[in-house]
């Protein structure tokens, strides 16, 4: 069977896949630039952690509440962000994640800089689950997120998001009330990220405010951008690759930031769409998603 160590990596991969897909909804589909996705992850994580350690909730009963809290946080953070664009939006998202992290550190209610520990593993039938079962739980979650994401992409909501992303003014002129769609993106993206947060908290069993600040948000951004913003396969690849790399290769761990930073710059130079992004070099080489269909016979554009 799979060794303990590999189980850990796989679980972490699954968790980051979920968060990355959350960021993808916000920035990839809806085009809302966000450098603070970890704050929604943190909302889910802290809500579940506090409910299960302080108020006697079980993992399962805390889960919907944690997801609701994440969605609510998305809404709260999304509302002020409605008025701003581009650069101001990017900076706003940085500001918000910092304030979030700061409040977690300085308000004793949330455990302060030491965070919250002894977060229990979920229980099934009265028994806390083992790692392998947790892996299954995580990947059921990944599957749900992927399926719901795919559905969103094929829905009118997804189309509205993409039209808003490509040209917000034209989208308005085409009858879409764009603020509403932005809020949908914030809520749904935040919920996904919150789900990742819950799974993270109960796996690592110990969370601190620093787990959900600016730098973790950037790590998620690297994953999504590396893999391909705006696709489902992109964040999955990015999360898997960038989670496994430092775990499997010690030297990556030691030079993590250097490599991640360099990777970002490199990707922006040569393949800003991401490795598996639409029309990327890799995709064109595999000829799965050609930019220009050959001749007049062009199949349906499937996502």
């Amino acid at each position, binding site marked *: 069977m799979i060794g303990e160590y590999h189980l850990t990596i796989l679980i972490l991969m699954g968790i980051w896949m979920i968060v990355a897909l959350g960021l993808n909804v916000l920035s990839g589909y809806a085009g809302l630039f966000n450098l603070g996705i970890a704050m929604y992850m943190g909302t889910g994580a802290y809500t579940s952690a506090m409910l299960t350690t302080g108020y006697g909730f079980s993992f399962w009963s805390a889960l919907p509440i944690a997801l609701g809290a994440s969605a609510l946080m998305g809404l709260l953070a999304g509302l002020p962000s409605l008025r701003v664009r581009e650069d101001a939006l990017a900076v706003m998202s940085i500001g918000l994640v910092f304030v979030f992290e700061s409040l977690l550190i300085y308000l004793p209610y949330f455990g302060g800089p030491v965070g919250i520990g002894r977060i229990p593993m979920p229980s099934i039938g009265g028994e806390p689950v083992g790692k392998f079962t947790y892996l299954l739980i995580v990947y059921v979650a990944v599957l749900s997120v992927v399926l719901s994401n795919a559905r969103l992409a094929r829905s009118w909501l997804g*189309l509205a998001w*993409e039209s808003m992303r*490509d*040209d917000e003014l*034209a*989208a308005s*002129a*085409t009858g*879409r009330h764009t603020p509403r769609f932005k809020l949908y993106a914030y809520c749904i993206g935040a919920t996904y990220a919150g789900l990742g947060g819950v799974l993270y908290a109960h796996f690592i069993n110990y969370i601190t405010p620093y787990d959900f600040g600016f730098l973790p948000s950037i790590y998620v951004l690297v994953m999504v951008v590396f893999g391909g913003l705006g696709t489902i396969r992109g964040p999955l690849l990015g999360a898997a690759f960038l989670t496994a790399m430092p775990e499997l290769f010690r030297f990556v761990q030691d030079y993590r930031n250097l490599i991640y930073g360099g990777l970002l710059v490199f990707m922006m130079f040569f393949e800003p769409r991401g490795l598996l992004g639409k029309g990327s070099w890799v995709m064109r080489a595999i000829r799965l998603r050609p930019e220009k269909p050959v001749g007049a016979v*062009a199949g349906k554009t499937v996502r």
Partner: protein
Amino acid sequence: MLKVRNLARHFGGLTAVRNVNLDVEDTCIFGIIGPNGAGKTTLFNLLSGIFPCSAGEIYFNGQQVHGHAAHRIARLGIGRTFQIVRPFSELTVMQNVLAAIGAKLGESLPVLLREYDRSPYTDAARALLELTGLGEHENEIAKNLPLGMLRRLEIARALGLEPQLLLLDESFSGLSHLEVEAQVELVRRLRSQGTGILLIEHNMKVAMNLCERIAVLDHGEKIAEGSPAEIVGNPQVIEAYLGRDYDA
């Protein structure tokens, strides 16, 4: 169909549009011409709700339009194209048109969660693409299209909302002779199908040929209105254009 009264728009100290009155009848091709900077596009932006009006009123089929947001006005039945094309660049031609068709369906959650790539919608989109001559290109990504096709795509997209009035902002500029002819045909066809057309145009030949009625703007005010023949002979109009040329 469209009544505009005393419309005005100021930007700080600058008055872009002042005291404009218009009556656009049903199923008529109405042209707006005037020298550069006359306020034509600003007028369109006011009509389509992209800018709020500083003063004045706009009524569409008896309903108040001024003060409403752009998306409301679009759903009320006023569609528009843009002087500098604004396609949904990463989406395909088909998706561009579907985006508008979808908007028509409304924004309740159950509707929003339905798949869009399905029969009644794609059929409707294809019909519009056929109408605008883009049938062969439905799967091309918008940003790869040449300008002529993009202009037609904008029209197809605007039609997705089933507008009663279509605002065409210089949709003939940048087109080759052949493309212009095709576009004129298209506009005439739309008009015969019952869509009202209000167009801004620099190309005099097109404007005179196509429009049944023309209003001339200069420095934000309407200085003349009438049939093409009346406009051509109007001394004020001539002065507005030539006077500009002399100063420049």
